[in-house]
């Protein structure tokens, strides 16, 4: 402690900026880790809270996926002796129609029984509504809103609230305002209650309910009731506790959470290199000080502890700052995650409160401190090894950062071989990820050797550019490879990650375009919701006939998409008329015969699955699969596997007749409209809108608009890679500043001599700049090379974890963009150290000569 106060603190105070930069390394890693996890957790928490608040005293919920089920099921459930109360519910998300107020979660309930499960505490209401559900039921325009929503929108009792329903815009009357607390805080207060039968009409649900909330009779356990209802209803129905509803949401967030974990790990790993570098500088600069301490009797252990203590404190400070920054990042991206989930899955959930979980904060602090200490281990060991005699001999430097050893190269080689073997015998996730980690470790160990070799190759080039400065810069890199290798390694890792993500983005965009060209080829799409994944609103099937009468329309294809559980994962069912599909769509067939698969699927004798579903669940052509549906267990063979990006969790294509038969749901989400030759899409769009104006809610998207929509979703997903690029640039700047500082300290005498024999300040500056550029270039070359291998792994990770099957496409354009960005960042990072080199005291530099 005394050593920390007497020795470490003055040094830190003297080099405050550098200390801050070092702490920034850990801060960045912790911030990315905390920020992304907190954002993810906040969205998840908001979802769980909404589920719990809405559930009230519901003990079990009966659902048949998101599709719903016929009303008759309610009577079966209510008649079960194990059930005390069972009430139907429809849940839908509708645009509130209020500027900046987002979506409104509408809960359709049956007020005659619902109060047995949910507490509607009114702060103001029409007395008859509060006391008499009859009035509420008799007037289908009745709506009850929360106090929060009413307050935000200036709504009072009997205010009119327009909502876009399936029958066009309808005016609703606020007949009750709920008091804050409990139920009203669900969905951030954007909650409204309607009569369930009015909601059926408004959302085009026909005579279906979304779910049944129930309470168990006294003396009956939840498990008993669950078992009894499962037996009664069959496998097509889920009987679960409200809390388990979050599982589907969590499984959807799983892929995103995985990407976050990888990013956080990389950020921390890179932060480690920055710490390492900074402590390497400190040890270099403080050699005389260490020598004095050793001469005064300080043991090696004490010196090591001193540096590790410094690193722990720095790690703690960096982590604390990282926590604060992470919270800010979380606030920024929670909305983005929610928006992405809404766009991709139609799951709208706003995280109202973004707060870091104390356990996560504690873990982040611990990880930050431990990472910092691990990073400082080697410099601390080097410091402990300082020979006091040599350290105190004027004019004799004990250069610790010089040299490269063979053992490291051999270890790198061995790790590389093991990694390749693991990849070749890739039997399970442990082998795969083990191989991945070993590959990264091998690349890191090999970095000094590769840096030397590349520096030698670069030397003639640098010399040609600036004969003196270039040669000096290259020599500096060749003579002390370990000095620069940490920065080069950090840059390399960061860029490898960027290339990996960029490659995925490029392949995705390419594949998406190909898929859009083949699958999404209708001229117009008529949808019930602005967001294609929002399945709250549905069309009745008979609307197809009316649509067909619009002049210019050649063919209409009815599509119903729905998310259903398949082997405990929510996958997308796409049901349509396969015969029309066969005529219009040329899918990329991965397995099976195109004609035969369509023939069998059209006959209702087979299913066509997406390639990602087949990959995620190891499905083979001809294999029989089972999907639990309200009408029984659908058991059909897989007759084809196609490349289909309809859903990240996988898609199952079936004929509409099969779907209607098994799910008892004749509704439609989207009408795919093919026009007659020569018909103008704009004109037909206008005619459709005119024909249904006022009595039908619909949106008509042109092919171009739909393409833009799909690509916008893809962009949201790949926004992560932009964060990674920003982190890479920051790493470049931080790392290079640190490395150059070490380099200048190490070469103070050399630079002093250079100035003394007539070297110009311009030349000294040029040397430092060239060195910075060279470091940037080394990092770029190694990063882009490792990125090529990393991309292979990332694609494999995407396939393993997300079922995302993409072709290998190296992101050349991104690599080209990175070249000026990283070199520019390197040059920027060199400005301050270069000035420090030319402005340093010449007398001090040559003191011992």
């Amino acid at each position, binding site marked *: 402690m005394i050593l920390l106060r007497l020795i470490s603190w003055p040094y830190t105070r003297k080099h405050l900026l550098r200390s801050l930069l070092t702490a920034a390394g850990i801060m960045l890693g912790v911030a990315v880790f905390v920020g992304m996890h907190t954002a993810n957790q906040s969205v998840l928490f908001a979802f769980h809270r909404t589920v719990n608040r809405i559930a009230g005293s519901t003990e079990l919920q009966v659902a048949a996926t998101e599709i719903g089920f016929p*009303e008759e099921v*309610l*009577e079966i459930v*209510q008649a079960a002796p194990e*059930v*005390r*109360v*069972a009430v139907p519910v429809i849940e839908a998300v509708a645009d509130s129609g209020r500027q900046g107020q987002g979506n409104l979660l509408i809960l359709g309930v*049956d007020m*005659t*029984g619902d*109060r*047995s499960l949910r507490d509607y505490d009114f702060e103001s209401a029409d*007395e*008859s509504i509060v*006391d*008499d*559900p*009859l*009035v509420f*039921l*008799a*007037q*289908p325009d009745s709506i009850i809103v929360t106090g929060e929503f009413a307050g935000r929108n200036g709504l009072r009792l009997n205010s009119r609230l327009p909502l876009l329903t399936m029958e066009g815009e309808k005016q609703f009357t606020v007949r009750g305002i709920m008091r804050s607390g409990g139920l009203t805080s669900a969905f951030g207060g954007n909650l409204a209650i309607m009569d369930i*039968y*009015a909601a059926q*009409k408004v959302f085009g649900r026909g005579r279906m309910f979304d779910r049944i909330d129930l309470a168990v009779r006294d003396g009956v356990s939840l498990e008993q009731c669950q078992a009894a209802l499962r037996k009664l209803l069959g496998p097509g129905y889920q009987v679960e506790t409200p809390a388990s509803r979050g599982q589907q949401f969590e499984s959807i967030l799983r892929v995103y959470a995985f990407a976050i974990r990888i990013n956080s790990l990389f950020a921390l790993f890179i932060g480690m290199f920055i710490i390492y570098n900074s402590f390497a500088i400190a040890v270099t600069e403080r050699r005389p000080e260490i020598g004095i301490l050793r001469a005064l009797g300080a043991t090696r252990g004490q010196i090591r502890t001193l540096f590790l203590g410094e690193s722990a404190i720095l790690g703690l400070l960096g982590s604390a700052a990282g926590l604060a920054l992470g919270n800010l990042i979380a606030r920024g991206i929670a909305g983005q995650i929610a928006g992405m989930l809404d766009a991709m899955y139609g799951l709208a959930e706003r995280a109202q409160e973004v707060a870091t979980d104390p356990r996560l904060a504690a873990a982040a602090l611990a990880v930050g401190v431990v990472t910092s200490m691990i990073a400082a281990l080697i410099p601390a060991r080097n410091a402990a090894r300082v020979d006091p005699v040599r350290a105190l001999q004027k004019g004799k430097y004990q250069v610790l950062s010089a040299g490269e050893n063979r053992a490291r190269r051999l270890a790198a080689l061995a790790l590389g071989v093991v990694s390749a073997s693991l990849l070749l015998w890739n039997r399970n996730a442990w082998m795969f990820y083990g191989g991945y980690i070993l590959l990264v470790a091998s690349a890191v160990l090999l970095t000094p050797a590769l840096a030397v070799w590349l520096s030698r190759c670069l030397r003639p080039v640098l010399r040609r550019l600036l004969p003196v400065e270039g040669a000096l810069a290259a020599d500096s890199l060749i003579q002390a490879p370990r000095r620069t290798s940490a920065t080069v390694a950090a840059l390399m890792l960061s860029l490898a990650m960027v290339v990996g993500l960029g490659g995925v983005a490029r392949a995705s965009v390419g594949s998406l375009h190909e898929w859009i060209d083949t699958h999404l080829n209708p001229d117009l799409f008529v949808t019930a919701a602005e967001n294609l994944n929002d399945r709250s609103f549905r069309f009745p099937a008979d609307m197809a006939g009316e649509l067909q009468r619009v002049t210019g329309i050649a063919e209409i294809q009815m599509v119903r998409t729905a998310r259903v559980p398949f082997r405990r994962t929510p996958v997308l069912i796409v049901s349509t008329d396969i015969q029309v599909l066969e005529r219009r769509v040329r899918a990329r067939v991965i397995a099976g015969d195109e004609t035969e698969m369509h023939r069998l699927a059209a006959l209702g004798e087979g299913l066509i699955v997406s390639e990602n579903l087949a990959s995620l669940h190891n499905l083979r052509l001809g294999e029989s699969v089972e999907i639990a549906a309200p009408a029984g267990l659908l058991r059909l063979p897989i007759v084809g596997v196609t490349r289909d990006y309809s859903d990240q969790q996988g898609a199952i294509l079936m004929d509409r007749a099969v779907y209607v038969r098994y799910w008892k749901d004749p509704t439609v989400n989207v009408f795919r409209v093919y026009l007659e030759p020569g018909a103008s899409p704009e004109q037909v769009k206008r005619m459709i809108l005119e024909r249904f104006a006022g009595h039908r809610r619909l949106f008509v998207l042109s092919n171009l608009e739909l393409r833009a929509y799909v690509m916008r979703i893809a962009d949201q997903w790949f926004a992560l890679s932009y964060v990674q690029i920003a982190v890479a640039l920051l790493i470049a700047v931080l790392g290079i500043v640190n490395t150059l500082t070490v380099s200048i300290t190490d070469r103070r005498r050399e630079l002093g001599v250079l100035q003394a024999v007539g070297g110009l300040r311009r030349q000294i500056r040029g040397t430092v700049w060239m060195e910075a550029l060279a470091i940037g270039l080394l990092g770029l070359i190694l990063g882009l090379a490792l990125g090529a291998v990393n991309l292979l792994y990332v694609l494999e990770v995407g396939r393993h974890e997300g079922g995302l099957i993409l072709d290998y496409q190296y992101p050349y354009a991104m690599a080209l963009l990175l070249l000026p960005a990283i070199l520019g960042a390197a040059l920027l990072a060199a400005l301050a150290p270069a000035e420090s080199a030319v402005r340093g005291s010449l007398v001090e530099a040559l003191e011992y000569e």
Partner: protein
Amino acid sequence: MSRRFLVLSAFICVHLRFPLLPAQDAPAIIEETQRRSRAPSRRNDGVLQVIDARGRITEKRWQVHQLGSYGNSKTILRFTAPPEVKGVALLVVNHPDRSSDQWMWTPAIARERRIAIQDRATRFFGTDFTFEDLEERDVGQFDWKLLGEGAVDGAPCWRLEGRPKEKKVSQYTSTLLWIRKDNYVGVRYENYKKDQLVRRLNLSDIERIQGIWTPRRWEMSDLARNSRTILRTENLQYNVPLKDADFTVQALRREP
């Protein structure tokens, strides 16, 4: 003999004839009460007033048609006022061996819905009656005891106590009822939860209509809420020509 006993119904009146045989015990008194109020069918208009703790009055008017009685009855109730509930109709089909089936017709959305009142302690559409109060109770599920005699509005009555044999049968722990000795009409019901009186029903304005002694005014007081509901029947007729087809979900949709 039906084993069901109507504790209260807006649709049932009590048949009066001087006792042929003076009842000696509680079950016999109950059976005689049931027998005297039986009618094959009836129709009436009704006014329902809810007076809350602050003295505010809300009023609804309806028209009732009923076919059968004691556990096998079918009733259609149509609201005629105020305008916000006008046209809403309720079909109640009672069964001798299980809870009644109920459907509601809402003209504004042109839909009938099944009402499954699973929590029988739920208030009947904002009144002080619960759904259980309006059910035809199975006499056999209660232990009846003659407590003695008393008087209501000066009329001599038997004082009986009914306790459910099983807890789940009723929300109430016990019910005290007063049955007039002269006409076998139940004129007061007091419902207890544990030892706490929670609801009291008084029946009055008893008139003899087509040979059946019928209370024209029911007043239910909710002692916890300090509110009361008054139900008055008007234009009551027994033995009107009604048929089963008038009491179906399809018939519910047909507005008169």
